[in-house]
């Protein structure tokens, strides 16, 4: 692009760039600055070097929160992908009542997170929750999510899958609808079974969509907050605390803005690390497609 035309375009690009700089770049730089300072209400920020990072990385509470986050992200995102893929294929196969079911599947995305968690808390209430009562009536063990940490983690994973399934489903369903039917016809003529069609045609062609869905969900899930905060508050005894809750507590309960900022940047680094494999795969696909 010529330099002169770039200068002519600048006034047109400037509003967007200014918006991005003011709401993302400058606050990010401020958080970096804050992460190297000790700061709380009524006290001038003092430079402490990397002390906040050392403090956070050496805190057993952070280790536990990070482990819980990684477990929840890995389990919930992959399970969600499998379910969404299965549902996308089911819907594509000409399911009866598809329009109605589509609305039902997408509904959780339209429900406020606070309302959704309140509803789940009630459904699984250990005393009077309808699902608990039903399980007890059937002689099955109830989910003791407020007592048993593993049950609480299961409950959070199921809740997050339920809340975010529509996102993954829509991406995969749209991608599946876009696949040309003549490919399947050719596969059938070549004698491919349905399983072979799935493995040799559907999966390779859905690959980019699956990668995009996984990448987004990894990043979103790593920031998981409301499901945990509203359901268990990180309890019992901080056993279900995730990194976003740890950050919230540091910033808004303890008013320790330095460690909170350091936690935020550690979160960014770890989520990028977790998603890096998928980013590399996506980059390779984009290169191959070019």
């Amino acid at each position, binding site marked *: 692009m010529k330099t002169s035309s770039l200068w002519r375009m600048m006034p047109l690009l400037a509003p967007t760039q200014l918006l991005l700089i003011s709401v993302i770049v400058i606050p990010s730089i401020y958080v970096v600055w804050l992460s190297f300072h000790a700061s709380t209400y009524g*006290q001038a920020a003092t430079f402490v070097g990397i002390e906040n990072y050392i403090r956070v990385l050496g805190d057993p509470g952070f280790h536990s929160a990070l482990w819980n986050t990684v477990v929840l992200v890995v389990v919930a995102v992959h399970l969600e992908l499998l379910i969404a893929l299965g549902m996308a294929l089911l819907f594509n196969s000409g399911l009866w009542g598809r329009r109605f079911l589509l609305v039902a599947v997408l509904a959780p995305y339209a429900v406020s997170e606070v309302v959704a968690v309140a509803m789940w808390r009630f459904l699984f209430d250990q*005393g009077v929750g309808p699902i608990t009562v039903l399980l007890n009536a059937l002689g099955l063990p109830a989910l003791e999510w407020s007592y048993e940490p593993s049950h609480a983690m299961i409950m959070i994973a199921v809740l997050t899958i339920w809340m975010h399934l529509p996102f993954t489903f829509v991406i995969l369903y749209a991608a599946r609808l876009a696949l040309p039917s003549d490919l399947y016809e050719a596969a059938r003529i070549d004698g491919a079974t349905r399983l072979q069609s799935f493995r040799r045609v559907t999966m390779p062609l859905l690959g980019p969509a699956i990668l995009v869905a996984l990448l987004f969900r990894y990043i979103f899930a790593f920031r998981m907050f409301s499901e945990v905060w509203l359901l268990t508050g990180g309890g019992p005894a901080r056993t279900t605390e995730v990194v976003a809750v740890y950050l919230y507590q540091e910033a808004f309960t303890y008013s320790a803005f330095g460690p909170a900022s350091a936690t935020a940047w550690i979160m960014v680094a770890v989520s990028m690390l977790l998603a890096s494999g998928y980013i590399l795969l996506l980059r390779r696909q984009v290169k191959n497609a070019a």
Partner: protein
Amino acid sequence: MSYETAFRLNRRTFLGGAVSGLALMAAGPAFAQGKTLQVLSHRVHQTSLGEGDADMLAAWKAENNADVMFTTLDSNPLMDRLFREASLAQTDFSVGYMVDNRPTSENATLFEDLRAYQDADPIEDFDDIAPGLVQGMTIDGRLIGIPVRTATQGLFYNEELLADAGFDGPAKTLEELVEQCVAISAKGRATGMILASDLAVFPVMFARAFGGDYISQDFTLLPDPAAMEKALTVLADMFSRGALPRSYATNKGEELLTWMQQGRAAYSVLPFARMGQLADPALTEYAGKIKVTAFPGSETLAADTAMSSVVEAWAMTIPANAVDKELAWSYIKEVSSRKNTLGMALNGNGPARVSTFLDPELTSKNDFAHIESEVLANARGAFPPFGEAARAQQLFLEEVQLTVLGRKSPADAVAAIQSRIQPLLPA
């Protein structure tokens, strides 16, 4: 020109109409009131002042040609917002309500020293406001808040559920309380007791029942570790015997009221001021059957040692960067008056004035005012304020939860509380 053309909505008409409408809306409040005082508080502070025809500030508003606009939040978000507002170059909130366990030497500098205002334009009968509460809001010699509300913890009980389990009255000792709770749970109709796991208030009450404490006013951590160990043992025993619900570890403060209103628990520890919501037939079918008494001490508590309940106090502050400090002080003076303190008490607010508890108008309408007054006489905060108080509380609660759920022995928990919290205390 046709009729249709004359009234066609075009871009110019739409924009003109929209701008005029917005200008009118913006000017509207100006016609009604000269000034607006913005107040940051909990919803309960607003409702206790009455609303609509029962607005206790109506005369003050007319006299000052001012309106009061409340922004209400739950306790923790409220404190965070108040400190954030006070940290800005300027805030629109001229009055902020602060709970007494939050001011520290650092954040107190963000608020006006109200002693100068008091000297220049005094609050009516200021000495009647409980001196201990005033002391709690005096940080490094600066009075940063005028106490306005006390939330003294009492033992609430459901008479019907007690009678159903064969008890003719509330427990007189902690040991009796535990046995009653176990028996009520065993009966199956309700849980013996509901407590929240996210507040230090509850384990502190149990520790005080044995003469112990969490952090004393002189910042001594666990002044009597054996008493805390006994308290944790009792709580763990109650949980293992079903006297506390299985959901204990995720029960939050605001849920206690619902459990009591629904008759799901026979006992709970709540501020006396909650009686209004537990005696209202529109809110609970147990209205009139839910009563409140003092939380009992242990049989082992020395006869000359009174059980000290937990009291939380709220005070009105003026951020140092507030836009209208004179109007703010005028509001604080008005709200703190004897008349309005009584009015708020009649609306369920725990008074900060000692004399209000003895007012015949209150005692004739509130059967429990004298009990609250007696409990308040020996009550003190759950812990004194200090910079790392919130973090210390979180660590304390973590150890308490682990013990109650049976994952840690009370002795180990006490040792962990000492080793984890001691470094956070002021030197």
